[in-house]
């Protein structure tokens, strides 16, 4: 497995988080959640350290990470824009929100801006259909979002349209 040299800088941090749990298979999910929470994704080095610690092959740890939406295998931005694309939100034009985000940030769902600031994702029904279309940014919920609101919301997270156009395309 090819591991980015940068990840080795964090090796001891990963290990510290991992060793909070007993080295047995039952610890797997909890460790993965802690790492995801701390780094917003599961670095390759962490996956291989987890595999060794709990005694589960790398393939199975990766399978687990790829199965659950709560885990990410690629680095996420500091701010993650989760746009609901459930039925209610879809009908209320969640897609135009995604289009607008792509215009403002230059990224499609699943992507991250090159400066590591923003990610855009789609999620299935967030359970707040009355507020459709719904968007969540790092845990903060925005309801009845219109494309025009997005600029203001991005600003809240530091983005002042500093040249995100045409990025990541």
């Amino acid at each position, binding site marked *: *497995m090819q591991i980015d040299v940068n990840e080795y800088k964090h090796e001891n941090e990963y290990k510290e988080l991992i060793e909070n749990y007993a080295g047995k298979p039952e610890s797997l999910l909890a460790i993965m959640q802690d790492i995801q929470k701390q780094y917003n994704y599961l670095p*390759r080095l962490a996956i291989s350290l987890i595999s060794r610690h709990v005694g589960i*092959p790398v*393939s*199975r740890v*990766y399978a687990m990470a790829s*199965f659950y939406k709560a885990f990410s295998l690629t680095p996420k931005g500091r701010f993650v824009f989760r746009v609901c694309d459930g039925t209610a939100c879809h009908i209320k034009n969640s897609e135009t929100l995604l289009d607008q985000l792509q215009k403002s940030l230059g990224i499609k769902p699943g992507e991250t801006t090159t400066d590591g600031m923003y990610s855009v994702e789609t999620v299935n029904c967030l359970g707040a259909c009355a507020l459709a279309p719904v968007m969540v940014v790092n845990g903060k919920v925005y309801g009845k979002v219109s494309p025009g609101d997005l600029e203001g919301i991005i600003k809240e997270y530091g983005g002042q349209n500093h040249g995100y156009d045409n990025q990541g395309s």
Partner: protein
Amino acid sequence: MKIKLNGKEREAMPGESILELCKRENVPIPTFCYHQAFGGQGACRMCMVEVREEGQKEARLAAACTYLLNREAEVITESDRIQRIRRTIVMLLKRRAAGDPILKELADAYAAPDLEAVVTEPENCILCGLCIHACEEMGKSAIWSMFRGIDKRIATPYDEASDDCIGCAACARICPTHAISMEEKDSKRIIWNKSFELVACRRCGKEYATREEIEYLKERSDYGQENLCESCRKKTLAITVKNYI
């Protein structure tokens, strides 16, 4: 324990699966995900039969490979209902493995309608899971089923050459639809995006395994005779035994 199998009284062992009983009695049942070494998985649903256990009013559909017989029952392996179910299953499996001759044959046999093919990765994979078992049995688990829903597929982590893979090809050999591609040329074997050096048998010269597999087996067992292919190993063993007696 008495089982009425297609109208004939048969004797089954408690805990035996319907499929095992049928195999013993030479009653053919189509299967994909079953393998003697691992037993039934119930993944492909190709082996559906009708069962009515003692005391039940109606026959139920069940996967023969996972249904364990624990009391007297009646089993029917061919009926219109089963025919229909298998037709649907063949239709769906063939969609994923349109290029596989066995599925083509089955599709003809069951008059399964043609659906637009889906190109799977690896091609022709029906997700039976046998390769995962084979690799696990080797003690390697280099591959697993990744992602979910329509994206689900068998792969190595990150689709890269896996540190765990020893290129033994157990996965490719067990695959019922030959979906796992393996290329062998110039004394190299390429499988799962990893290239391995093939080693020739010391006696007959046939390239029989990868260097990694041989090393691995050596450290795992007392793999006595060095660098001999299976048939030469058996021959040497026979000679040793003969000299001994």
